[in-house]
């Protein structure tokens, strides 16, 4: 297979304070198996994620929230991306986020929020490709 063309690069992270990791690993593996390059990290400060996204020239940032913090961290991330002229990077979220929070987050500019009951992990790569193709 031709491996020298463009690949989708996605940065996955969760806060070091969030104890749940198996979900994120499962998603990482699914995205890898779908042909994407997954950069995997954890962050102490949400700013770390934005800096890493710049260095790694990612197309998408995926953040997991199984604890508190989504309504605190995500607006900071979106704001930083805007300041640094990195708004072309799409942000997607997953975890224990409520439908109300999802609505607010999407209004703020988050591209998609994967709620627990919403669908299967195996569908996520296609959703991401659609987002990047501008169909969503």
């Amino acid at each position, binding site marked *: 297979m031709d491996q020298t063309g463009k*690949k989708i690069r996605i940065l996955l992270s969760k806060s070091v304070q969030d104890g749940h990791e198996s979900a994120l690993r499962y998603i990482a593996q699914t995205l*890898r198996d779908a042909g994407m390059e997954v950069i995997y990290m954890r962050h102490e400060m949400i700013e770390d994620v934005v800096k890493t996204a710049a260095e*790694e020239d990612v197309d998408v940032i995926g953040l997991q929230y199984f604890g508190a913090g989504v309504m605190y961290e995500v607006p900071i991330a979106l704001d930083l991306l805007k300041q640094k002229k990195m708004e072309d990077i799409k942000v997607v979220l997953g975890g224990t986020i409520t439908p109300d929070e999802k609505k607010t987050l999407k209004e703020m500019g988050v591209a998609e929020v994967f709620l627990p009951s919403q669908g299967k992990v195996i569908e996520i790569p296609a959703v991401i490709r659609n987002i990047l193709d501008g169909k969503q």
Partner: protein
Amino acid sequence: MQSSPADLVKEALEGSIRAVARLISMVENSHPQAESALTALYPHIGRAVVIGISGPLGSGKSTLVDKLAVEYCKQGKTVGIIAVDPSSPFTGGAFLGDRYRMNRAACEQNIFIRSLGARGQMGGLSRAVSDVIKILDAFGKDVILVETLGTGQDEVDIKNVADTTVIVQAPGLGDYIQTLKAGMMEIGDIYVVNKAESIEADNLHANIQSAIDMGNQRGSWIPPVLKTIATRGDGISDCLRTIDEHIQHLKNEGFYAQRQSERVRLEVIKMIKDKLSQTVDTIIIRNGAFDEAVRQIIEKKVEPYSYVTKVIGSILNPSLTEGK
């Protein structure tokens, strides 16, 4: 991409992290203007010291690289890290998890980390790595650490891109037989036994040392065998000092110039091979006549060797086959 390659080069030279990252992506993705960007950067390269860190899975390379980077930072140096991980030969995807270990809180601004998938190179280094090194060099990094799983093949090999190659081993990955095998155990300028807190570490250290003592020396540098506990930071400053000694050795004995000449030679060969490979792809394989030739070969109307000779002839002398 909004900025043109020329803009990106300008912004990178002015210190923009995003521009550097974009240039790296261009090179990785074989962007049509990657070459002109690299040509524009070429006058600015040549300052950086390149250190290759290779070794088996789980030996602790990422942790070691992280600690070395922070140590260089404390010395006032700026650091670039290139972490290469395998790409799936089936899906093309990759899990780039090396930076999970790297925590440079103290040195944020001075350390740039980029993860690369090996993208088709089973030996562990992507073909783009030497170009990515040039970009980080031009960006002003004093030290560039390249971390990779394998050692590579021929022109795409860690020892051909690095000034100093450090091989990191850890106890429990095999017995003394492993230390005698060709390849990884021949190319190290420095050997590190990491996870030295383990009881078996001394044994491994002794085995590597004896393999070196009994081996044929290639030149006047005898590879030292160091011990580290990277997670604790033990042995890191010794490691750094030994790397510096090796670099000094290269510069003193004139080997630096010799290695550079060898490196450039291999790199140009690689570039020629890559270009030819692209030509084969675009001109031959995607050409309907090729499919017909394959059919004829299967039906034994044509045998493959003379077909190949004819095709190569037509690449080298296109005018002879006009109107064909």
